[in-house]
């Protein structure tokens, strides 16, 4: 039976600056990007990166960052991450920089939609709301 419950303590937690180095290391071992999960743990974001080793196991990596911190994109190392990074930027407003393909926060949402829908606590300057 696969492990469903995630043991938090087992994951390395790093800062955004250390991310690229870690990912490069992983990539050099042949790992590939699986997905990333962003959590709005106000006042921080926690982003869980999942990588898959050629042995098919999943490796986790957690990044903790302040909401206005910049997160480097890993799409230059692993192109497969580009869509998910765009999505997280669009849904949470995480400042991801150097995206390989930049959808300018218009990947899934239109300018009339509710912006950054998954934020738990909305920032002060009210963003253009959607809906009727």
């Amino acid at each position: 039976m696969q492990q469903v419950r995630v043991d938090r303590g087992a994951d390395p937690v790093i800062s955004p600056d250390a991310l690229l180095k870690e990912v490069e290391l992983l990539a050099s071992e042949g790992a590939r990007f699986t997905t990333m999960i962003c959590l709005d743990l106000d006042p921080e974001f926690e982003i869980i990166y999942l990588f898959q080793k050629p042995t098919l196991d999943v490796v986790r990596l957690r990044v903790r960052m302040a909401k206005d911190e910049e997160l480097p994109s890993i799409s230059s190392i692993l192109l497969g991450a580009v869509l998910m990074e765009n999505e997280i930027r669009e849904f949470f407003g995480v400042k991801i920089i150097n995206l390989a393909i930049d959808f300018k926060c218009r990947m899934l949402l239109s300018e009339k939609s509710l912006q950054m829908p998954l934020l738990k606590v909305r920032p002060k300057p009210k963003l253009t709301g959607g809906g009727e």
Partner: protein
Amino acid sequence: MSGELLVSLLVLLPVAVAVCCLALRNAAAQKVLLLPAMVLLMVAAAALALRVLPEGPFALTPAAVWDNIVAVLDYVILAYFLYIGVTSRNGLVLGLAVVLAVLLPVVQFGVLGGHVAVSPVFHIDALAIVMCLVISVVGSLIVLYATDYMPAHEAHLKLERTRQPQFFFWFVLFLGVMNGLVFANSLLWLFFFWEVTTLCCYHLIRHNLTDEARENALRALWMNLVGSVAMVAGIGLAYNNAGTISIQELVTGGSALVLLPLALFCLTGFTKAAQAPFQSWLLGAMVAPTPVSALLHSSTMVKAGVYLVLRLAPGYADTSLSLLVAIFGAFVFMVTSLLAIGQNISKRVLAYSTIANLGLIVCCAGINTDLAIAAGIALIIFHAVSKGMLFMAVGVAEQQIGSRDIEDLDGLAARRPVLTIAAVIGMLSMLFLPFGVAFAKWAAIEAAGAQAGWFIAVVTFLAVGSAATLVFWSKWLGRMLSGPVVETKEPKPFLAYGTILLLVSGAVGLSIFVTPLITVLIQPALSGMGYDQAFDVAGWHLRTTFGFFPPWALFLAVAAAVLLPALAARGYRKELDPVYLCGVNVDGPELWFTGIAGEPVQATTGGAYWTQLFGEARLTPLSNWSALVLLVALLAGVILR
């Protein structure tokens, strides 16, 4: 007017006018000179036609001193070629000129023994009249067009010192020389005129004096010199084998011994007609101002090549040479039509189309039946009118739009309606049936189909080529027809537009009156060459031994089919709907759609060229080698018999 006078007028008037042009630096003055002169030229041609057609061939032999003058001039020109070869450091030109310089005296003094009296020197039959009319009418109109075109051209180039005098000198000279060429019966005279056309052509291509222009002019020169060498050799052989250098005698003599010289003359014709593998000089010629292209492609230069092949056709009728010429022509027709599909430069497409049509004429000469020769002659006429006009239209478009790329002609109808309609009619006249070119194509296919054996290859080439023609014209034609309406006033320079429209009406009119054209011009030309009547003209339709062509009925039907809807569509006044763009159009007149990141993206609709199949990179080597093999086979076949 006496025939002599007319003939000398037709040859010498252009020469005189050309010299005058050299002295006139003023564009208006040139116009004042050229307009009446050209009208006079046309009138003279018509008058000669009126004389020759009812009365039969007209022979003329100038005083013997002229023979000497011509001989001297031959060497002057040859020296000039040598000079060009030396100064340009072009090995090919130099080498060929040297060969010529050796060969010419050998032939002239060694074989011909100094002087051979040919009687007559000029033999003006109906075929020559056809050519003369084409040269004098279409050529003159192009000259008039050039008087409008060139000032604008020079204004665009911002020249300090006008080069128009030189331009018009060579330009007008060309007409006279061409007339002389088609009248000539003596091979030596023919050779002289031939060399002068080469010279004119060289200078006209070079006119803009850019590096590319110089280079392309040299290419044209050496390729034409190949033809000259072949011609001189042919003259020598002809005299050696048959004892005559009169074309008429050679052709009607029916001796198998003349086949090799005839083959050499055909080769000469091919070089001048830019048949593969010599097509690159004509393609390169498009660096010249557009009137030059119009002139070279329609009424002069290349037409001289096919004229020669056609003129000699009776001489090689029913020989394997004829078959090989037919196969060669058909092959060139097919391959250049296919090549044209891959081109996006309008003038290049036109150039390939010219080569293709010349190939078709060559093929007709090779098929060598009444119908085929008739088709060939008809093609010369129709092609000259339509192609000259198309070049002129493209030239105007290039000046006004600033591009010769077919892509940029997209939607021209909205910007330049008159020009577009002219061009569209011109293209249709190159392409579809009731019009003359297609009529000739029809006749050619029937004529080729009626021959058995190896002519299957000819028919196949013709069929594929004619389908390819359809493709490259159509995709160009269709693009021009609609576009966002732009409020621009179409500048309409009088002479340029006037000549274009005249030629358009000529193309249509001649096609409508193809039956009288055949009875009045083509059938006499046929009988002049010793062929039977190709068509059984019954009232208003044409019947061949196996086919049937009702020109007027077709014209009525097609005119109704094309014009009525066009008129009706003009009346459609409702607002136009946006095109289908998968539901993401951005509203507006142009083609925009919502693309990545929600931003508007302009939809572009570039043309298709299928370059991986029809591109020059792929097809040209293939075609050149095959054509070369065919040429070698052609010569070898004749030598080995």
